[in-house]
C-alpha cells in the first residue's frame, strides 16, 4: 500500500512542490499589486490558446509542444494587454479590465471548444488539469524553466519588488514602469502556461493565491512570507495528494479544497490568537461552526432520493423503463425470484410480457405457476408471449393449464395456437377447438390456420373445403378412438 502510494504519487507531489516554489513568490507579487484576477485571466488566456491550437488542427496530446506554443503566444499577448492597460490614475480600475478579459477568455474557450468533437473533455482537462499524469520528462523540463525564471527574478528582484509594492515611487526613480511590468507579466505568462498544462487553471490559481495569503497572515517580512509560503505550500500539497490517493478523489480539486480549508483554519486560529479575550473568540468560532453544521444537516434532509443503482432497486422502481431494463439483466440469478414473481402482476402489460419472456428462457419449475397465470392475462400481447414460452418449454404438465386457458380465450388466433400447443403435447382436447375455429363465421386466415394445424397433427382425410358437418362428425365418431404417435407427432384413428 505504502509503496504503491509512493510510486503513484511521487511525480505529482514533486510537481506540486515545483508549482508551490515559483507560485508562492509570484503570488506575493500578485497580492501586493492587488490584482488577484490577473493570474486567473492569464491562465484562462493560456487555456484558450491551447483550444485555439486544437481548432487549428493540432492534437492536444500528440502535438503538445505546438499547443504549448499557442498557449504561450496568447499568454504573451495577454501580458502585453495587461501591462499596457495598467493606468496611471486608475480611472477604470485595472481589476475590471482583467475580470472582463477573464470572462471573455473563458467564454471564448467554451465557444471554441463547442466546435470540437470532444470539446467538453478538452475544457475539463484545462480546468481541472491532469496533475496525476505528469511525466518525468515534463517535470524536468518544467523544473528547468522555473529555475531560469527564478534566477531572472532573483537577479532583478529589487526592481520587481519595488514595482509591485510601490509603483509611484518606482516611477519617480526613473524606472520604466511599462517595460518592467511587461517583463513581469511575460515571465508570469511563461510560468502560467506550463503550470496550466500540468495542473489546470484552478490549481494554478490556488497555488498562486492561497499560500501567499496564508503567508501574509502569519509573517511580516518578505523573506518570512516566502518561507512560510513554501512550507505551507509543501505541507498542504502533500496532505492534498495523500487524501486524494486514499479517498480515490480527483487530485487537482482535492488539493484546492485542502488549501482552502488550510486558509480558513489559519485565519480562525490567528483571529482567536490575536483577540483580546481568546477564550471568548474561541467560543464564538465554535458557535459559528455549530451553526454551519446545523445548516448543512438541514439541507441534507432535503437531498433527493437516491437513484436506484442496484438491480434489486431497479426491479422495484416506480419507473416502467427501469423495471423493463432490470428484467433483461436478471438472467438466471435466483435471488431475484421473489421480485420477478411480484412483477408478474405489474400494472404495465409491457413488464408482464417481459416476465413471460424471462420465464420462457429460464425454464425453471419455480416460474411455471406464474407463466400459467399469464396465459389468461387481460392483455393479448402478454398471453401471446406466455403461450410462446409454454410451447418453447414443451412440458406435459402444461396441458391442463392450456386446456383451461383455451376455453377462456377470445382472440381467435391465440385460441388456434393454444389448441395447437395442446395437440403438440399429445392432448386431444385441442381438436374440437380447432374444428370450431374452422367455422365459416371466422375470418379466412383463422380458418386456414386452424385447418393447417389440424391436418398437421391429426390423420384425417378431409380437405379444407369440406363441410363443417363432416369435421364435426369425424370428431364425434372418433374422439375415443384416437391414438397419439409421439415420434410422428400425430393422432391416428385406431
Amino acid at each position, binding site marked *: 500500500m505504502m509503496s504503491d502510494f509512493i510510486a503513484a504519487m511521487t511525480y505529482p507531489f514533486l510537481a506540486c512542490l515545483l508549482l508551490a516554489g515559483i507560485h508562492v513568490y509570484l503570488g506575493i507579487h500578485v497580492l501586493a499589486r492587488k490584482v488577484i484576477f490577473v493570474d486567473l485571466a492569464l491562465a484562462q488566456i493560456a487555456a484558450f490558446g491551447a483550444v485555439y491550437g486544437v481548432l487549428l488542427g493540432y492534437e492536444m496530446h500528440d502535438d503538445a509542444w505546438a499547443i504549448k506554443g499557442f498557449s504561450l503566444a496568447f499568454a504573451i499577448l495577454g501580458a502585453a494587454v495587461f501591462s499596457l492597460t495598467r493606468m496611471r490614475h486608475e480611472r477604470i480600475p485595472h481589476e475590471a479590465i482583467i475580470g472582463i478579459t477573464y470572462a471573455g477568455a473563458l467564454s471564448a474557450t467554451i465557444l471554441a471548444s463547442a466546435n470540437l468533437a470532444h470539446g467538453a473533455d478538452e475544457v475539463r482537462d484545462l480546468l481541472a488539469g491532469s496533475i496525476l499524469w505528469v511525466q518525468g520528462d515534463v517535470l524536468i523540463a518544467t523544473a528547468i524553466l522555473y529555475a531560469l525564471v527564478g534566477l531572472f527574478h532573483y537577479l532583478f528582484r529589487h526592481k520587481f519588488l519595488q514595482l509591485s509594492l510601490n509603483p509611484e515611487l518606482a516611477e519617480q526613480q526613473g524606472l520604466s514602469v511599462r517595460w518592467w511590468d511587461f517583463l513581469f507579466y511575460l515571465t508570469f505568462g511563461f510560468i502560467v502556461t506550463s503550470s496550466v498544462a500540468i495542473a489546470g487553471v484552478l490549481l494554478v490559481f490556488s497555488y498562486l493565491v492561497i499560500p501567499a495569503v496564508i503567508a501574509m497572515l502569519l509573517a511580516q517580512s518578505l523573506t518570512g512570507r516566502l518561507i512560510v509560503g513554501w512550507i505551507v505550500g509543501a505541507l498542504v500539497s502533500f496532505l492534498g495528494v495523500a487524501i486524494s490517493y486514499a479517498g480515490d478523489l*480527483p487530485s487537482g480539486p482535492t488539493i484546492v479544497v485542502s488549501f482552502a480549508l488550510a486558509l480558513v483554519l489559519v485565519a480562525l486560529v490567528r483571529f482567536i490568537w490575536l483577540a483580546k479575550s481568546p477564550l471568548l473568540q474561541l467560543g464564538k468560532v465554535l458557535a459559528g461552526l455549530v451553526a454551519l453544521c446545523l445548516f448543512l444537516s438541514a439541507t441534507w434532509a432535503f437531498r433527493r432520493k437516491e437513484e436506484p443503482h442496484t438491480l434489486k432497486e431497479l426491479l422495484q422502481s416506480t419507473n416502467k423503463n427501469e423495471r423493463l431494463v432490470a428484467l433483461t439483466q436478471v438472467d438466471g440469478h435466483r435471488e431475484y425470484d421473489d421480485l420477478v414473481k411480484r412483477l408478474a402482476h405489474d400494472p404495465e402489460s409491457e413488464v408482464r410480457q417481459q416476465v413471460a419472456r424471462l420465464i420462457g428462457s429460464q425454464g425453471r419449475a419455480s416460474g411455471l405457476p406464474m407463466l400459467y397465470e399469464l396465459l389468461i392475462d387481460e392483455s393479448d400481447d402478454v398471453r401471446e408471449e406466455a403461450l410462446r414460452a409454454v410451447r418453447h418449454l414443451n412440458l406435459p404438465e402444461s396441458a391442463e393449464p392450456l386446456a383451461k386457458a383455451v376455453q377462456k380465450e377470445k382472440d381467435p388466433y391465440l385460441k388456434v395456437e393454444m389448441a395447437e400447443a395442446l395437440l403438440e403435447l399429445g392432448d386431444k382436447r385441442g381438436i374440437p377447438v380447432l374444428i370450431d375455429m374452422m367455422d365459416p363465421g371466422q375470418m379466412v386466415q383463422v380458418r386456414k390456420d386452424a385447418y393447417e394445424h389440424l391436418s398437421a397433427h391429426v390423420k384425417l382425410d378431409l380437405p379444407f373445403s369440406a363441410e363443417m358437418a363432416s369435421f364435426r362428425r369425424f370428431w364425434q365418431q372418433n374422439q375415443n378412438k384416437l391414438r397419439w404417435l409421439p415420434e410422428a407427432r400425430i393422432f391416428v384413428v385406431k
Partner: protein
Amino acid sequence: MKLFPPLLIIISISLHADQIDSLQAQIDQLKEQVNTRQERASTFNPGITVFGNLFGCLGGADDEVEHDHGAEGHEGHHHGAACPNSLWLREVELDFRASVDPWADAVLILSLEQEQPGIFSAEVEEGYVTLRQLPVINAAPLGLKLKAGRFLTSFGRFNKIHLHDLPQPTLPFIMTAFFGDHGLARNGVSAQFLIPTPGDDNALTATIEVVGGGGIALSPIEDHTWPGFLGHLGWFFNLSDGHDLELGASAYVEPQNNKPVKPVQVYGGDFNYKWKPFDRGEWRSFLFGGEAFLANVPDQISGNLPFGFFAWSQYQFNQNAYLGLRYTYGQNLIDRTHYKHGVGMFFTYYTTEFLRFRFGYERLVDRVVASAGENQVMFELNFVFGSHPVEPYWVNR
C-alpha cells in the same frame, strides 16, 4: 474585512470544484449500466432550482461633480454612482417548490446576494403557500388562487419578475426609485381571479392583495404596521396566430389614517406586445412593452405627483441572440421640474435556456445638473441548474 477577497476566491473555486466533480461522476455513470431516472420530483422532495447571476459593471460620470442622489429615494439603487467597476457574483437564488397536500403548493425562494461586492446578504425573496382550492367547500370560485406569505406583488409586470429573468441586466431606475432595490416585495395575502369575458381569444385576470404597507422607497419611513391594498387588472388578447397583447392597470393604496406618517398611493399602467410566429418561432420573436407610474406622496411639495415610465423592446434575430433597447424617464421625487432619463442597449446570447450571456450599455442624463450624464457598461452571466420550473408566459426564454 481583509478576509473577504480570499473568501470570495474560495467560494468561486469551490463552485468550479463542484462542476469538475460532477463531470467526473458523469463519466463513471457512463461506465456503469443503464441508469434512467424520473423527471418528476419525488412526492416527498421539493423541486430545487439554482440560479446564479454574475454581474459586472463599469461606469463613470461625465464629470466628477457629485450631484444630489438623495432625491432618488432613501434606499434607491444609485445608478452609476453605485457602479463598483467590478465583476462579482451578484446573486444566487435557491428556488424550492413542492406540493404540500391536495389543497396547496408551496414555493420558497432564498436569495444570497452581494448588492455591492463584498457586502453579503441573505434573505427570503419569496416564501408563500398557494391554495388551489378553498378547504371545506373544496372549490376554487372564479378560478381563485389564494397566495399567502411573502411575495413579489403584482404591480405592473416587471415587479413580479426576478432579477435573473428580466430582459435587461438591471431594473429600470424608475422602479428602484419608487419601490426600492428589489421592487415591491411584501408579506401579505394575494387573490387572483379569472373574470369571465365573452370570446375565447381574450382573458381578464384580476389580482387583489393586502400587504404590509409602508416603507416603500417613495416614503422615507419604514413602518409595516398598517395594511396596504394592491390591485391589478390584466387584459390579455390573442390578436391572431403568434401575436399577443396584454394591457394592465395597477394601483397601490395605503389608506388614510391618523398616524404621523402620511400614506402613499401609486398608480400604474402597463402594456406588452409579443410576436412569436409559429413558423421558426424559436428563431425570431419581438417584444415591445412598457410601464408608467404615477405616485401621490402627501409629504411632497403640494401638487407634486412624480411620474415616470419606461419602454423597452427586444428583437430576436437568430436562435440564440437577442437585441434589446430600453428608454426610461423619471421625475425627481421632490421637484417635478427635474427629471432623469436614459437609453440603454442590450445584447443577449443564450447557449441554451440554462446559460445566458448579456452585454449592455446605458446612458442616463439628469436634468437637474445639465449634461451630468452617467455611462454604464454592463456584463451579465446567468446560469440555471436543477429542476427548472417552466418560465412564466411573459418572460420570453
